[in-house]
């Protein structure tokens, strides 16, 4: 057998053929997700290709979430929610409600993603599932609607670009900083149609919630997928979060002599917190370059950095303090269970007391639809994944991207602040057990 990347192994397994990059396959899809924006179209396609009263054998593998416009921010959104609810009631697909969370977080918490699986979503950040060692990729509504009916879909097996980080990451440097750095180095189309594979000792040490960040933002360099080889941390995570009992096949890893299109290597200790300047994620710079930039709004949330550990870092920075006057802090948990954990641990109370606006779970202001839209000339620092012109509101607004620690420090001072400059007590030892990289 030829040496293979983990991508080639998963697509070989799912297509029943021994394939490498460049081959076209039809592969069996393990689970699929769509939301209130792309779902109605996928349903239309499904209804078009099937008979009126057809059975839906894949129903148990289909997940619907209401996250982009949730709670409904208009009549059209409300109607779209009802289209999904009605379909789910009729066919028995999994329906999640408003405030249950963002599609990708729901998929992970509810156990719809396992290492080695092939998972698709009618949403570009479906690459997130690679954080658990699955091949996750975004598809169009036509792809998804037909896959409802058949359970399989065509793919071109992608080449892989490998990002290797060795050694230890310095204090205040997170997976978010790594991925912004990678995107800055290869460019926003540098991994187009490729898998971004993340490896090396620093990556292996990352807790799962941070591996998800790396996989999530593969699409910001054009990637078809982003993946971290799964290990026992994934087993523990799935047991805790999704009560799934999985054991990772040791062969579910890239072979040593697998073929890569390119390999980028980094020394962990050389890395600094990164910020992507407006208006492209590829505009990544060391935080030093933008320290002092005045910020009107800090947005913490999204499928990239809206998890408990992310929000916890912000709360630790702001504990007993106030958000800087003239700056707004908006916090949106990625799921109901993240929300509940913030409630139970006092994180929510800390943030609200510090002056934050804490919202129900969902995409929030990420795509500029509602709940925190930016006005003309507003400048925002967000833990989100995209900062294209107008992404969070006005075409004349500006969005910087950074890690939750950078977001917390920035909310405290009202200007972009290097999280390494905070007193260490602000995210001291008590955090490290939960948060992983911060020490």
């Amino acid at each position, binding site marked *: 057998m030829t040496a293979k990347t983990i991508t080639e192994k998963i697509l070989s397994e799912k297509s029943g053929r021994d394939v490498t990059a460049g081959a*076209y396959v*039809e592969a069996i899809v393990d689970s699929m997700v769509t939301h209130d924006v792309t779902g109605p179209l996928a349903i239309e*396609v499904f209804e*078009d*290709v*099937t*008979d009126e009263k*057809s059975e839906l054998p894949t129903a148990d593998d289909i997940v619907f979430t209401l996250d982009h416009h949730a709670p409904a921010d208009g009549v059209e959104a409300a109607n779209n929610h009802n289209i999904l609810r009605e379909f789910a009631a009729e066919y028995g697909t999994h329906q999640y409600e408003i405030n249950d969370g963002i599609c990708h977080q729901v998929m992970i918490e509810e156990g719809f993603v396992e290492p080695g699986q092939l998972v698709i979503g009618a949403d*570009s950040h479906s690459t997130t599932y690679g954080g658990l060692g699955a091949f996750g990729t*975004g598809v*169009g509504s*036509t*792809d998804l609607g*037909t896959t409802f*009916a*058949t359970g399989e879909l*065509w793919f071109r097996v992608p080449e892989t670009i490998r990002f290797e980080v060795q050694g230890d990451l310095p204090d205040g440097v997170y997976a978010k900083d790594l991925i912004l750095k990678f995107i800055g180095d290869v460019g926003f*189309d540098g991994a*187009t*149609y490729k898998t971004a594979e993340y490896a090396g000792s620093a990556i292996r040490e990352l807790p799962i919630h941070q591996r998800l960040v790396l996989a999530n933002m593969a699409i910001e360099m054009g990637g*078809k997928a982003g993946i971290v080889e799964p290990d026992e941390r994934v087993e523990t995570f799935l047991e805790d979060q999704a009560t799934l009992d999985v054991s990772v096949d040791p062969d579910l890893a890239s072979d040593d002599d697998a073929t890569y299109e390119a390999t980028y290597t980094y020394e962990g200790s050389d890395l600094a917190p990164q910020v992507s300047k407006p208006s492209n994620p590829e505009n990544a710079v060391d935080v030093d370059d933008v320290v002092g930039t005045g910020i009107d709004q800090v947005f913490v949330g999204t499928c990239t950095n809206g998890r408990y550990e992310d929000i916890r870092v912000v709360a630790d920075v702001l504990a007993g303090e106030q958000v800087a006057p003239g700056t707004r802090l908006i916090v949106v948990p990625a799921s109901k269970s993240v929300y509940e954990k913030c409630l139970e641990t006092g994180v929510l109370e800390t943030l609200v007391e510090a002056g934050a606006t804490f919202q129900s779970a969902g995409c929030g202001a990420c795509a500029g639809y509602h709940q925190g839209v930016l006005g003309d000339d507003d400048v925002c620092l967000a833990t989100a994944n995209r900062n294209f012109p107008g992404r969070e509101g006005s075409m004349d607004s500006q969005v910087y991207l950074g890690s939750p620690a950078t977001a917390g420090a920035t909310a405290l001072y009202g200007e972009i602040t290097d999280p390494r400059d905070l007193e260490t007590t602000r995210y001291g030892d008590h955090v490290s057990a939960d948060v992983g990289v911060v020490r």
Partner: protein
Amino acid sequence: MTVDEPGRAWVFGDDIDTDQITPSRFIVLSDPEELAEHAFNDLRPEFSEKVREGEFVVAGENFGGGSSREHAPLSLLGAGVDGVVAQSFARIFFRNAINLGLPLMICPEAHRIEDGDEITMDLDAGAVRNHETGERYDAEPLPEFLQELVDEGGLKPYTKRKLGTAEQS
């Protein structure tokens, strides 16, 4: 399937993105024929009026970059275009075109074709023929499986046949 009727080539350059194919102010439309009325609106305003059934779009590198929406290939189908020949395609355009049944050929020598030349796409032989000059350009044939998809008119008809829900003719 071979596209054997020669048709006029509409030649474009490199990096034609989906916004240039279908300006984004028209993406509220979804009917292919209405979309076709605005195809290449800013780039070549005469295209939508003058293009005829069975003609071809020819382009350089990276045709169809940009948005993942299906409007761009839809507008070309709506215009009656028989296929697109380019030196290379952006991935999402490629996928959307195949899914919608719009024939594509990757042809490194596409730049030899001049605007207005009569050409044919010979999908079986993996060649583009230029009837103006008598030249034949090698083109990468689609993998058999994708060719099947295109022949059937795209992913929806293909799925219908697989499911047995296609109307019998």
